[in-house]
């Protein structure tokens, strides 16, 4: 049987020269109608958590407040993702159009792009685009201003409440939730925060209507999605694919013929071993049969030459460094995991110690304050359970 090629989509990076007309038409529509479209399109957040975008906009629109804010999350720090930078490089006007429509719906007057420090070289280009955008806004009678806020090398600042702390001039330490940003976000005001790619997709929905988007993908996982493909693959890069494919389909298309495992969703996601390729789909948790993994689009491919111990060690090192240190389960937990796997490998601890570490990650999942500490269990458990012998020998 020949390899099945996944259908490559070209919605996000298509150059839509009619962008001003689309923006104008959309801004002229009633708020309720636009929100209705967003909800029926089935678009879910592409930053990783998968919250329905239309609902997020609706909730913020319903809040009564003098000031509201729109934030584009361009912190893109998850290992293995690099698609947001490409969107901002090629089609930032779509992201800005999404922000403008969201501003009109919610009544926000100010917006921000939180750009990771590693992408600082993009600032001159983005400023040019912002100039064009602001003149389009004033032509269309929309009072909305967008500024760039630079990050400074902290993965945790991609977490929405840490990002807002950072914008307010403090350490990027996540806040307690609730209240959620839709109620109390930046400067304590209702705030919509969306991933770069989410905002770019909204433009597709404005342009083609919700049906075209909804027709792509599968139940609960609608539309296309950008995948950042790296590791042991002959074709690393950024690809727009329909949601709902299985890891097997993906590996047939992108693997090097010797794929041992795929890390779906970056270091905070799951490692899928070869024996699970067929039964694992890529999408949001829903009524799909089998396992469905959500993802910000990071797909890291490992072939049989790779040591899963080294892979896990690398992730743990990442988490230990990037934990904000605010809560004990995550701060101490990450340190103990790093030490623990090393001790087992060296033979300083019995192999049964791995089970204690597995329990520790369970505890972290339930007691850590934010998604960072909670998701360490994902990769730890999926690697240790599937490649236990590699952790020991």
């Amino acid at each position, binding site marked *: 049987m020949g390899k099945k090629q996944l259908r490559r989509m070209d919605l996000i990076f298509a150059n839509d020269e009619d962008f001003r007309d689309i923006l104008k038409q959309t801004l002229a529509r009633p708020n309720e109608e636009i929100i209705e479209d967003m909800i029926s399109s089935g678009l879910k957040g592409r930053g990783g958590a998968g919250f329905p975008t239309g609902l997020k906009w609706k909730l913020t629109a319903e809040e009564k407040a003098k000031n509201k804010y729109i934030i584009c999350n361009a912190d893109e720090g998850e290992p293995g993702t690099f698609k947001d930078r490409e969107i901002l490089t090629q089609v930032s006007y779509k992201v800005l159009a999404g922000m403008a429509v969201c501003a009109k719906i919610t009544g926000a007057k100010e917006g921000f792009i939180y750009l990771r420090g*590693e992408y600082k070289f993009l600032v001159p280009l983005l400023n040019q685009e912002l100039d064009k955008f602001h003149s389009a806004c004033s032509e269309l009678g929309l009072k909305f201003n967008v500024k760039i806020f630079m990050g*400074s090398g902290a993965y945790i600042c991609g977490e929405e409440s840490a990002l807002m702390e950072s914008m307010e*001039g*403090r350490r990027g330490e996540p806040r307690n939730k609730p209240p959620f940003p839709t109620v109390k976000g930046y400067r304590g005001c209702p705030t919509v925060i969306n991933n770069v790619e989410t905002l770019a997709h909204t433009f597709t929905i404005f342009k083609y209507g919700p049906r075209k988007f909804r027709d792509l993908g599968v139940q609960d996982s609608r539309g296309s999605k950008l995948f950042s493909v790296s590791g042991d693959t002959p074709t690393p890069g950024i690809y727009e694919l329909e949601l709902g494919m299985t890891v097997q389909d993906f590996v047939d298309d992108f693997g090097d013929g010797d794929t041992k495992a795929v*890390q779906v969703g970056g270091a905070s996601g799951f490692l899928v071993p070869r024996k699970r390729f067929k039964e694992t789909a890529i999408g949001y948790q829903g009524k799909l049969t089998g396992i469905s993994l959500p993802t910000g689009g990071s797909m890291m491919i490992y072939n049989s030459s790779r040591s899963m111990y080294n892979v896990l060690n690398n992730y743990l*090192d990442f988490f230990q460094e990037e934990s904000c240190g605010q809560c004990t389960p995550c701060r101490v937990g990450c340190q103990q995991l790093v030490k623990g796997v090393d001790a087992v490998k060296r033979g300083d601890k019995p192999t049964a110690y791995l089970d204690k570490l597995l329990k520790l990650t369970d505890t972290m999942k339930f007691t850590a304050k934010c998604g960072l500490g909670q998701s360490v269990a994902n990769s730890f458990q999926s690697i240790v359970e599937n490649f236990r012998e590699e952790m020991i020998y």
Partner: protein
Amino acid sequence: MTEIQTLVKDLAQSHGRSRESLLPILQGIIEKDRFISEYAMIEVAKELDISTAEVYGTASFYSFLDTEKRGKYVIRVCKTITCAMKGKNQILLALEDTLKINLGETTPDKKFSILETNCLGWCHKAPAMLINDDVYTELTPEMVRQIIEDYRKREA
């Protein structure tokens, strides 16, 4: 006024003196000096009317807001998994060898520092590194030597 005082005043002038201006001001100091000295932190604290502990607490949180003296060119080699698999160690060795310093150190002439950093977002073009704000990808040891040579020429 010292050079730092002037710089901090100018930065506060353009970004404002609210707490929200703290990060942009600290980033401005980095852009010029590549590190934030204790003295600079005291000046920032005075300018924004907050405690120096707040300034230090914030600065020390962010990996790009160095509070240790660094060279004019800060090299950050990506050490996250894909770069690690695709030859990061050889890149690091080539840098250490050309610059005659170890990871974490700065050359005696204060021109170059070698650091490691987490995922730079160039996994499809690994291995990658940053020199200040500029990105270098798909590196080989030979390329690294050439890049450093070019920077040295620029300095000569």
